[in-house]
């Protein structure tokens, strides 16, 4: 791996990725903590749920018994109450923001894959894109939102979708590029020995090798897309999405309602995350741990 790709790699969010995909037990963990596989898979599901319930319970207790006012800290019960009361608005807002995020994710991921294929193929394209990618990776959305609204018009959802696309593009690009560079010498030799042409090479080797990396990139991008689409709503454009409703509710101190919308946005982010995680799991099924070695 050359120096550049090393830098690239470090900039990507892939570390984030793999730890979550393959929470490791075996290596790096002492055998003395061994649970049977069944206990382990039970705990893996039960532990977070129990922890969540405990925190939720404490929170409710704090408000109902602890004397913290419901105005300062809305209780879970009142949040659920608002959620029920404003359910149609919650659903339509979630749909709107979700659609923006999904479109952004799809376009951003597609662009990321295509452009990284170009960067992987031509070194010059890689070097030329490097500063731009680096800049995109660090630019705060708040900086871009007003500009994009001016460029594409504040009356359409395009600005939000563009922001979600930019946010998704970066991790997909970086991970895919890494994936394209993972083909093993033995496989490349093999394809050459078969006198495979470049299309066959791409279809039979490069793409399948990169696939887990692409999917890891998409998974990282998924919740970013949601949060970006949502935050972009704070900066203009048509109303009706989760972001503008959170802002409006909070501005009138309707915090329980604001948190109901926040809850919906968490659920949306989680839905995106889990959907892409499932996709990744399916694709990773056949690739030995650590992607391709």
């Amino acid at each position, binding site marked *: 791996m050359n120096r550049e790709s090393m830098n690239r790699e470090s900039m990507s969010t892939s570390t984030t990725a793999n730890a979550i995909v393959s929470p490791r037990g075996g290596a790096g963990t002492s055998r003395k903590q061994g649970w049977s596989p069944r206990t382990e898979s039970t705990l893996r599901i039960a532990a977070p749920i129990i922890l969540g319930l405990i925190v939720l319970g404490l929170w409710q207790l704090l408000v109902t018994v602890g004397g913290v006012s419901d105005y300062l800290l809305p209780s879970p019960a009142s949040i659920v109450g608002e959620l029920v009361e404003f359910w149609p608005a919650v659903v339509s807002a979630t749909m709107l923001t979700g659609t923006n995020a999904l479109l952004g994710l799809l376009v951003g991921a597609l662009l990321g894959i295509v452009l990284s294929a170009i960067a992987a193929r031509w070194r010059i394209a890689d070097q030329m894109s490097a500063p731009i990618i680096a800049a995109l990776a660090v630019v705060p959305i708040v900086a871009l939102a*007003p500009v994009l609204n001016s460029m594409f018009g504040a009356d359409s959802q395009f600005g939000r979708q563009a922001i979600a696309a930019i946010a998704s593009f970066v991790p997909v690009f970086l991970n895919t590029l890494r994936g394209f560079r993972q083909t093993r010498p033995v496989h490349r030799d093999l394809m050459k020995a078969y006198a495979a042409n470049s299309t066959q090479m791409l279809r039979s080797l490069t793409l399948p090798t990169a696939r887990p990396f692409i999917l890891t990139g998409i998974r990282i991008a998924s919740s970013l897309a949601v949060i970006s689409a949502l935050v972009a709503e704070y900066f203009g*454009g048509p109303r009706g999405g989760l972001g503008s409703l959170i802002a409006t509710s909070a*501005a009138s*101190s309707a915090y329980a309602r604001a948190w109901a919308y926040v809850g919906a946005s968490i659920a949306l982010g989680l839905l995106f995350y889990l959907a892409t995680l499932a996709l990744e799991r399916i694709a990773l099924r056949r690739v030995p741990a650590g992607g391709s070695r």
Partner: protein
Amino acid sequence: SPTDGGDGGSADGLTEVKLQLQWLPQGQFAGYFAAADQGYFEEEGLDVEIIPSGGDIVPQDALANGDVDYAVAWVPKVLGSIEQGANLTNIAQIFQRSGTLQVSWADSGIDTIADFEGKKIGSWGFGNEWEIFAAMAAEGLDSSTVQIITQDFNMNAFLQGDIDAAQAMTYNEYAQLLESIDPETGELYQPEDFNVISYEDTVGGMLQDAIWADSERLDSDEAYQETTVKFLKAVVKGWIYSAENPEAAADITIGAGSGWGPSHELWMVNETNNLIWPAPNGMGVIDEASWQRTVDGAISAVNETGASPITAAPPASAWSNDWIMKALEELEADGVDTTGADFSPIEVSLLEGGN
């Protein structure tokens, strides 16, 4: 808690007070900065910290949470908070009039609220939209008959035709329009280029910048009561200074961190003065009719999710003229004119970019 409001004191014997603004430092708040700059607070024995806010800070919540002693906020927004359980009192209605406009192009045919139907209507959201919904409700329109578009920090969306009628404050966004180049002429836009609907002239007009205090402390905390009167006295003096010395007031706000250019800042101070002065009942005194109009409007306004800022009239504790009256009396005793009888605005010419 840092909220001394009368019982704590700083090293030099002054009482520490925190005032939460509802936006960044700018001419809209010139009176408070002038009072600080001219030493009016100090004369009253107060050491006032003026705290600006940003996109997501809700000033009345900072007050309700006890983070600050007083807050500047629009009435309909605070009414919403009061209904949610905040215990706040309007102690001085600084702006006597609504400064909100809905601006459209001169040739757009949008001359009244009724013309909004089917149009793309801009608003900042964040609770600034209730006047629109209230005015529309009076015309029998609801939020589903228009498309509400959130405006960002500038008027580009309007200038580029993304929205048909944009929300604008007389003292700020309207000036932004007049500081922009018309690409067709290469010159700045002129007032004739626009149709302007002022909410003050509609049923939807609502009371805006008011000073809010903590109701409980007003009831029970004597030191806070004393501080409140002193504080209001200084504030009134600050606004009088701003009315009489708009240029100097503009310089003070720029010095306090406003990032606007000098011409825009001066425009803002001047237009803000226009919303305050003259004040026939005395500056800061709450006009019961205007209050009632605000409450009615807030009850009738319904946004696209079906939410209203308030569903019922606020408690009586939501406003009180006691404190401002006391302050005005003391000032008048000193021979200060608190009605701005001879106030007259100045002429401000805006330069490109407000610079």
